[in-house]
Structures are given as structure tokens and as C-alpha cells.
């Protein structure tokens, strides 16, 4: 599973450009699913028929990662860019990127510290004052290699660090994708849809469309989530802690997770001795928000892998948390087989309209 995660994070797939990730996943799940289709927005939707139908579970992980898009060229051959998805400007100067389909290596440059005025040094460099340097000395040279609208992505190799941790880019949410690939090797009683969604980072775009077509009874989103257990942050603001297990969210900006479902997952973790923690902040959001309010409403939960330095080229994740997350998803689905009645769609009126 770690091998798959390594390969997944090595692939580039900025929001709107998920093709390579999709192709990789397609190959990985081939032979394990009854159907794998790509919908009109680009989601990969894998279907596994259950032994008994009448109950539909949707799992969802997003394929896209944050990155950049080329917006212009300067006369001396530098590339102007804008972020795609939420990126902390402070981390950008001095990072390595790959630009365009041809993966041209570049570096994010800005005025060197020696040339800055004193007051400039104390300020965050703005993206509009940064550029990508691919080594070209003229606009013509850059325009030959790179087109307007080309994507650029962080270059960062998957590396195992000490104490069961790994460093990579795009752990949010290739970790979730890896979990889904693993889950699809098993079969469950109910109908299972595993959705690898697009464009989560630019506004939960893919999930909205996917949920509309699947009409699940319940949905579980697998995410890489924030983890701030670092110096200078007081404990109540940690969000999650590395090494404390899979993280269960209660509420965030886009969803109020279904209480019964969250309890069910928590109890499943305890019963199976899987490490689990509650996410302790209510900021952020994910695909579940769009799924929860799709059509007549869907019960949702999110199981996440804590990742420090999310949306950066050097996200850090604990391998055990990753495994806990995967185990918890599998155990939850197993438990669900005997509990579908509890989660069957409530409300028997007005169905003719939907």
C-alpha cells in the first residue's frame, strides 16, 4: 500500500489536470471492480455490486492537488503564475516546480534578500512579485516551451523519514486515493461506489456532480487533513496529532457530519482496536459538504489521515495513521453490512419527485 502511495504522490495532478492520476488509478483497480467510468467532469467512478442491493455506499477521495497555472511571460523569459487552490505564499520562494505537460524543471524566484530594502525584508513576498525561472533568457524561449494555462506543480520526492513518517507532496489527498484502491480489492454486501473526484481544491467541484449521479444512502470521504501539533501552537488548536490514529471529523465549514454515522465509526474503531482521534477544530472543508446536501440529502462522515504542512511540497504523514485510516474504512464497511437498516434513507414521502 505504501508503494501505491509513493507512486500516487509522484504523479502530478493539479485541479483540472487529473488525467495522469486517473489513468494510474484505473490500472490499479482494473479487474477488481464491476465498472469504472469517467464522468463528464472527469471523476473516476468505480462500482462494485453488492450481494444484496438496496443500499448504496459512496466512498470519495479527491485526485487533484494544489499547484499553479501559467498566466504570463516576462520579457526576460520568466513565467508569471497564479496558485490553483489554497497555497500559503510564504512557502513559495525557492521551491522547485515542474511546468507543463513536458515537465520542464523550474524554480520559484523572487528578489534576493541582499537587494531588499529593510522594510521589504519584514514583509511576505506576494505571488505577483514571484516568477518561475526555467532558465530561459527570452520571452520567445519560454513561450516555445510553455503555454498560457499550462499547470505547474511542486517537485518533491516521496521520502521515508524517521519514526514511521513519510514526506511527500500531494498526500492530500493521494492518501485517500490509496485507501480507496485498497478497499476496492474487497467486496461488501451493499453496492459500493468509490469516487476519485476532481477539482476538490478549487471548490469541491467533482464531488457535487458525482453525488448527484450516484444518489448514495451514506457517503464517507477519505481525506488528508490538517495537523498542527507543532511548536508555538497551543494544544487546543492542534486540530489533529501525528501518530494518534485516523481522524474523525465532527463538524467543519462545509459539513455537519452525521452523528450516528460518526459514532458508528468511532465505536467500530474501538471494537477493532484501531487508533482513532477526533479532529479538534471546525475549520476547513471537503467534498462531504457537497455530498451532504446533494438531492434529498446524504448522511456523511469523513475519515482522515493527519498531515502536517498540508498544501506544501513537504507534507508529513505517519505511516501508522495511514494504516489506521485504511483499516478503519475497511472495518466500518464490514460492520455496516449488518447495520444497513440503521442508515437506510429516512423519510418515505415525496419520493416521486426525485
Amino acid at each position, binding site marked *: 500500500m505504501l508503494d501505491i502511495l509513493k507512486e500516487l504522490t509522484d504523479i502530478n495532478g493539479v485541479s483540472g489536470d487529473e488525467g495522469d492520476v486517473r489513468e494510474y488509478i484505473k490500472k490499479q483497480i482494473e479487474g477488481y471492480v464491476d465498472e469504472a467510468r469517467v464522468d463528464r467532469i472527469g471523476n473516476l467512478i468505480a462500482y462494485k455490486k453488492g450481494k444484496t442491493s438496496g443500499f448504496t455506499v459512496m466512498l470519495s477521495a479527491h485526485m487533484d492537488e494544489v499547484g499553479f*497555472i501559467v498566466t504570463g511571460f516576462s520579457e526576460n523569459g520568466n513565467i508569471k503564475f497564479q496558485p*490553483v487552490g489554497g497555497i500559503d505564499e510564504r512557502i513559495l520562494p525557492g521551491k522547485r516546480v515542474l511546468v507543463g505537460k513536458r515537465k520542464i524543471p523550474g524554480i520559484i524566484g523572487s528578489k534576493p534578500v541582499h537587494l531588499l530594502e529593510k522594510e521589504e525584508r519584514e514583509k511576505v513576498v506576494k505571488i505577483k512579485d514571484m516568477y518561475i525561472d526555467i532558465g530561459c533568457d527570452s520571452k520567445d524561449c519560454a513561450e516555445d516551451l510553455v503555454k498560457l494555462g499550462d499547470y505547474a506543480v511542486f517537485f518533491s520526492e516521496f521520502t521515508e523519514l524517521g519514526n514511521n513518517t513519510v514526506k511527500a507532496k500531494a498526500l492530500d489527498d493521494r492518501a485517500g486515493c490509496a485507501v480507496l484502491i485498497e478497499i476496492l480489492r474487497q467486496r461488501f454486501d451493499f453496492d459500493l461506489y468509490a469516487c476519485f473526484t476532481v477539482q476538490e481544491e478549487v471548490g469541491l467541484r467533482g464531488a457535487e456532480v458525482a453525488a448527484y449521479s450516484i444518489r448514495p444512502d451514506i457517503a464517507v470521504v477519505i481525506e488528508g487533513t490538517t495537523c498542527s501539533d507543532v511548536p508555538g501552537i497551543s494544544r487546543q488548536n492542534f486540530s489533529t496529532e501525528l501518530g494518534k490514529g485516523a481522524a474523525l471529523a465532527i463538524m467543519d465549514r462545509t459539513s455537519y457530519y452525521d452523528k450516528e454515522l460518526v459514532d458508528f465509526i468511532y465505536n467500530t474503531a474501538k471494537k477493532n482496536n484501531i487508533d482513532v482521534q477526533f479532529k479538534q477544530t471546525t475549520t476547513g472543508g471537503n467534498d462531504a459538504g457537497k455530498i451532504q446536501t446533494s438531492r434529498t440529502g446524504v448522511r456523511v462522515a469523513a475519515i482522515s489521515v493527519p498531515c502536517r504542512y498540508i498544501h506544501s511540497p513537504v507534507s508529513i504523514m505517519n505511516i501508522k495513521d495511514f494504516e489506521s485510516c485504511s483499516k478503519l474504512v475497511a472495518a466500518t464497511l464490514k460492520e455496516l453490512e449488518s447495520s444497513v437498516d440503521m442508515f437506510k434513507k429516512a423519510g418515505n414521502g415525496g419520493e416521486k419527485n426525485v
Partner: protein
Amino acid sequence: MLGCLDTLKELTQYTAVSGREYEFAAVLKDKFSEICDSVEIDKFYNVIALKKGMGINGPRIMVLAHLDEIGFLVKSIDKNGFIKFTNVGGIDARILLSHEVIIHGKKDITGVIGAKPPHMLEADEKKKAVKIDELYIDTGMDAKELKKYVSIGDAITLKSHPFFLKDNKYSSKSVDNRCGVTVLIETANELKKLKHKPDVYFVATVQEELNLAGARITSFNIEPDIAIVVDACHGDVPGAPKEVVFPLGKGPAIGIGPILNRELTERMLDTAKENNIPHQVDVEPGSTGTDAWATQVSKYGIPTVLVSIPVRYMHTSIETVHANDIKYAGKLISRFIAERV
């Protein structure tokens, strides 16, 4: 070249503040019925015109441009008859001082926007930009007379002073997005000369400036295979970074970005190149701020492309556009529909 500017001039003279589009919708219905096979106005006052294609069960294309414009609502009338107002759609309060406006009450009433005079300001007040809640409208009427015609919630628009500028440029209120609606008309006219398989729905949408309501509703009801959104983008002005503004007269800007369908966008770019239609590229890293944000995720997803017309001084009463950009956009979209779908 000026034909499209005449159309645009006519369209800018109507008012359609978001949420109060019924009058202008009726005008557009007539306009489109001259050039399309059928036209209807839905219950939200979106105008939906169908131009049938030659194909049977061919793809269905929706070309949409919003018909609404920014404006204001009456918030309060004080005891001396001064009107306080709130904005509908994003507007820069700094440009409003000394503007003429029309209040659309039981009858149309002209007024001017005033604020505390400069010689009455404290030194530090002079340096600050005026805020919308410091402004008021003066109609010359007292409260009693005014209230006969005007009530809370009535719409207010900037009075139009259409101006033709040098070199085929036109300046007025609501060029955003009457220029887009004009492109719809241009496209329909161009399509008459071409053979096209797809059924084309020309949709003038309401309430874009508020929450893209019209685009959400119409894309759900029409459920097209492709959506082409036509809206305004920023024209070049001194001092703005050149990646986000576009020179006037150099052709429409074709949007490229994560939420726009890349394959169709490439096809649109190819259409422009093959037909030698001047065009520009508008990189949109996020929501695009247009109806495309709504169409893209409607129902099962609608692959969406964006074509923008450069407009200077967006959201003012002097929005300025170049005839070529409208003309070229009509050519581009019609050829895309005829040749590339």
C-alpha cells in the same frame, strides 16, 4: 463594423437590475424571436431562445450571457426625502458621487447622488474614500411626495449616457454584460449563414451579479451537453498587471483554467486559429466569477467554455468596449458550433 454597436447601444438603454429583469426580458424575447426558431421566458425571467440544428439527436449547446446589471435598492427614505440605498452586485462607492440615477418606483424618477460637501469635511475625512452608507439620493421631492411613488425595495439604476468613442469604441452603463447578449445575437446571425448540427439554446440569464441564479436554473432545466458562457473581462488600464487585463479590439479572450473543460477550450482556440479570428487567452485560476461556475456542476456536469469580452471600467456607468471584440466573438462561437461540435 458598427452594426453590433447599434445593437449594444439599444440594449444598454434598458434597465435590468438583478431581480428586476422582466421588462428587459420581454424586449429580448422579441429580439431573439427574429433570429431563432422559438423563444420563451421562464418564471425567473430568463430568456431562452432555441435555434434548431440540422442534426437529429445531435448535441445540445447552450450559449449564455447574463442580462442583468448592477444597481441599487431603496433602503430608507428620511424625513426630508433623501433616499439611502444599498447595492445590488459589487460596486465601487468611490465612483458614485455626483452620478445621475433613476429610481424605478411607481414611475421612473430621476435623482442625483450626493454626500457631505468637501468644505464641510474634517481634514482626516477628506483623505478617506466615501462609503456607500454615507451617500444619498436627492430627487428634489419632499418625503411626502416621494413616498407616493417610491417605496422601500424599489430598484435604482445608473442613468445611461451612451457615448461613442474613437476607433469603434462604445461607453455606457451595463456594457457588462449587454456586450455578451450582443454576442449571442451576433452568433445567431452568423449561424444563419452556416450549417450546424447541434441545437443551440441562446440563454440570457438573470441575477448573475447576485448568485448566478439564472445560470443555475436554466442549466438544470435545459441540461445541455456543452455550455458556452459569454461575459465581460477586464480591459487594459494603466497600472494593472498585464496578465489580468486585456487590450480592447484584439479579439475576445478565451478562458483557460481548472473549472473550464480543457478539451473544448483547445477546440475553441483551434477554431480561432484556423479561421484567423483575433483572440486572446484569459487564464482563470479559480471560479472565473461568471455563470461558468454554475453551469459546470449542474446535474451530471456540463463541460463549459468561457469567452470573454474585454471591458474597461467594469461596474461603472462608463464601461467601455470595442466593436471588434463583439464581432469576433460572434464569428468565433458560431464557427466553433458549426465546425467543432
